[in-house]
Each structure stands twice: as C-alpha cells, then as structure tokens.
C-alpha cells in the first residue's frame, strides 16, 4: 500500500478538507490505485536533467513602481458574504 487512510486524513487536513471516515476509506483506495499506476516514475532516469528555472522561461515581464487604482470599488466586495463597514468580518480567529 502506498498511502494509508491516516495519511489521506492528514493530507486532507493540510488542504483544509474534512473527510468522513467512509470518504477517507474510499479515497485511500482510489489514491492508492493512482499512485500505483504512477509507480513508473520511480524508474525515470533523472541524471543531468538540468534546471527548469533556466529552461525556456520567458523573461523580463516586470512593471514599473506606479500606482494603479482599481476603479470600481463597489464591485470588489459584492461577492463577500459578511462585511462590517469596509472590513471583511469573520468569526473570531484564535491565535
């Protein structure tokens, strides 16, 4: 087995997803199958593949330090479920 149910639950937690026991069980089976299918990767010969950072990346898109004000302020928060004044309101965050 490549991935256990506990690993699935732990990973889901990192991704802020909660799974029922049943879901975790089912997912563990599916992910195990996917990982098994990918097993081939372990045999890929990766010697001297070079650095991707350098390869074929476009260069130089950068912007000057200028202020651009987003014009339509009203539209910015139409999707927000709860506002207080111009603050976004969420339940208390415990530090």
């Amino acid at each position, binding site marked *: 087995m490549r991935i256990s149910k506990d690993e699935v639950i732990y990973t889901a937690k990192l991704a802020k997803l909660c799974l029922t026991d049943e879901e975790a069980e089912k997912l563990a089976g599916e992910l195990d199958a996917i990982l098994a299918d990918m097993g081939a990767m372990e045999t890929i010969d990766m010697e001297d593949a070079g650095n991707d950072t350098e390869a074929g990346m476009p260069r130089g898109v950068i912007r*000057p330090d*200028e202020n651009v004000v987003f014009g339509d302020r009203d539209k910015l928060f139409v999707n927000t479920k709860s506002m207080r004044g111009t603050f976004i309101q969420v339940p208390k965050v415990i530090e």
Partner: protein
Amino acid sequence: MSFETIIGLEIHAELNTKSKIFCGCSTEFASEPNANTCPVCLAYPGTLPVLNERVVDLAVKAGLALNCKINHVSKFDRKNYFYPDLPKAYQISQFDLPICTDGAVEFECAGRHVRVRINRIHIEEDAGKLVHMEDEPYTLVDYNRAGIPLIEIVTEPDMRSPLEAVTFLRILKSILEYGEISDCRMEQGSLRCDANISIRPVGQKEFNTKVELKNINSFRELQKALEKEEKRQVELYRFDEGHKIVQETRRWDSAKGRTISMRTKEEAQDYRYFPDSDLVPVVIDEPAVAEIKNSLPELPMEKYRRFTEEYKLSADDADILTGDRYLSEFFEDTVREGAAPKAAANWVLGDMLRMLNESGIPSREIPVEPIRLCRLISMVEAGKISNTAGKEVFKEMFTSGGTPEEIVEKKGLAQISSEDALLEMVKKVIEENPKSVSDYRNGKTKAMGYLVGQVMKASRGRANPAMVNELLMKELG
C-alpha cells in the same frame, strides 16, 4: 559553569515603494480598511502577480549595503498555509534561490569585535491585518497590507549577547534608512524582528536547542525579551533541566514582560514550498547591479570615518550621530549653514536629543530647521544671548516653532551688553554688598565671583558676564 548566549536574528523590513509588490495598489497608510486593494491583492480567481521592478532594485541595494553576493537568477516560491490574513492561501516568497546571500556586518560592541554574517536576504509579500473584536465573537480582516513588499534578512547565529543583538539591529536599521531601502518605522511594523536564542556552556562547539521569539517591536523590547529568555534558559541548564528547553516559537508579551509559548516544532506547518509558475525567475545582470551599487549613498561606517576626520568629532559623538541617518543629516545641514561642527554636535547631541526623547518625536521628523539652529548657535557664540537663554530659545523653537530672533525678542532674552545699563547694576551691587567688597579688597578674590553672580541675578541672567566682570574690576580698582 559559565554559559555563552547564541543569538541569530530574522528581520522583516518593508521596502520603500509607491505600489505593492505584485499590483498597482498604494502602499501608503490608509485609514479606511481595504481601501488599498484590487482583484490581484485580494486573490480574485484568475488574477496574476506582476513583479514591481523597484522591489528588486531595493532588495539588491540592501544586499550590496550588507556586503552580500547578488544572485543573478533568483525565483519566487509559494509558501502554502491557510490563514484569514492570507488571501491566496499562499505567501509568495523566495525559498531556495533568494536574491542575496552571504553578507556580513562588522562592529565593535563592549570591547568585542563582532562580525555578524548575513545568511540570506529574500523578497516576500506581507499579509493582511486581523483586528480581533473585544466583546464580540468576530475578527475583522483588512487587506491593505496584503502584498506590501518586504525583505527578510536572516543572520547567522553570530551574536553573543542581547546587547550585541540590539547593536546589530541599530546598525542594520541605520543602513536601511541611509540606503532609503526602508522607512524602518518599528512602531508601525515596517521593521520587525524575530530572534533565535540558545545557550551553551563556554567551550562547547555544537549549538543547543534554540527558541524563536516573535512579536518584538522596539530595540528596548528586543533587549528585554532576549535577557528574559537568556535568563530562563540559563536557569534551566543550571538546575540540570536543559531538556525542558524545546525548539519552539515564543511570543513576547511586552505588557507582561514575559514570553509565551506559541507552538513547538512538532506542531510546525508543512508549508509545501514550490516554485510559483505565475512568475518568471528574477534575472539581474552585472551592469544592473553595478548601477545600483553606484546609487548607494554613503553608509554609516563611512560617514563615521568622515565625521571624525573632517569635523574632528570625538568617536562617541560621531558614533551617535551617524547611527541615526536623520540626526547625522541634520547635524551636517547645520554645519553647512555655517555653524561650527563642535558646537553643532553639542547642540544636536545635547538639547536636541533630549527633546526628541522627551517628546517621543522620531528623528526623521525633527521639528527645527537647521538654519535656525545655526543662527541660534551664532547668537550664543557672539554673546547676544547667554548660554542659558540659548537653551530656552531652543526649547521654544522645538516645541512651538518660530525663529530664534523672534523668540529672543518675545521673551526678552537678549543679553545686556550696554555699558551704561551694566554700570548702573554694578554700582548698585557694590553699594548693597559692602562686606564682599571689603573681602575682595582684602585679597579674597573669590568674593569677585559672588559679586558677578549678584549682577547676573539682578539682570535675570541677561547681563553679559564678561563685561560685568570687567566693569566690577574697574569699579573696585
């Protein structure tokens, strides 16, 4: 057994830009929450970051000022974690290819030559601000700070006492201010410092478990927090309870004057760093680095040397002045207006510094014009007003403004140098103090001092002391 303290710092400095790191929103302080936001810094679906070129320039400038190696290719990575102040659920930062590496800062501290190596400087974005409501079960989110450009400067564990750490931070702050890289307003959070501290027996090679201290926002707090933690750890080792020191992050509570554990290493997040393919690698060539190098102003160390040589200031005076960019600039402007360097230094380091400390006004906002201080100095030197009166004028200039001439006039502080007026006072004092007069005539020269004092008192400090002395001698023959 004697112990040695090991300290390393991680400093976040907000870069001096007009716009945010990946969008055109303003970096100016806005009183209205979320006023400086747009789809990009709110992480709206589909938006993409585009790097602000000045951020790169300033980071390189910082690297050069701290004697770092500039990496011609660096890249951005995503640091993934969920928190309501982080709209994308990842912070764009630099992980394994930072823009600057391997720098160093050297200084003297309490008789030790200290060399603090800079491990790295990397560019990253700031998060938003959370406001926790007092009596309600809510937190309010303001993304004005989300996307403000920062550099994080990471030192090697090269400091051996809280004082060395504070001294290093002061020097670093002055370098960043000199280079106009950051405003370094600690009180507003544009310069923040986390400290790693561990203790080991003198002679031991390897490091013991370190503790990270967060939430420190002034030099004084840094010193206090480190001293407190140093003491805590030393005591644990003394009582053979060193195992109780665990790798953890502790939050400095300045009100309570103690640190509180936030999280241990075991609870540490898996940030899943990986390259951000929405951005391309930052490529900076040698000519660009050279150009930035040329734009670097005189840094504190050089200025210190120049102040001691050119103005013949004492080491201490030059040290304090050059440690603060604004103070040093004010001093030099005053000298440029014509003041004698020694006198200008005395005023700046004496009355000026005291007034700044008392008022809490930061040195970048000195409320006095250099030219006015220069005129005040020349009034004192020329004897137009007394030294004491000068101090009073300065205080007035500092607190309420105005020119020195206006203040002297308004307060009637001008020195009395008219011979007629002084002679009248002298005669009156001789008349009223026959005992001292006869003492003087009998050879008790000390009595002269008393008589001069009486004339000064009668003139409420305004009489020209040299002339008073002269007139008294003449009258008493």
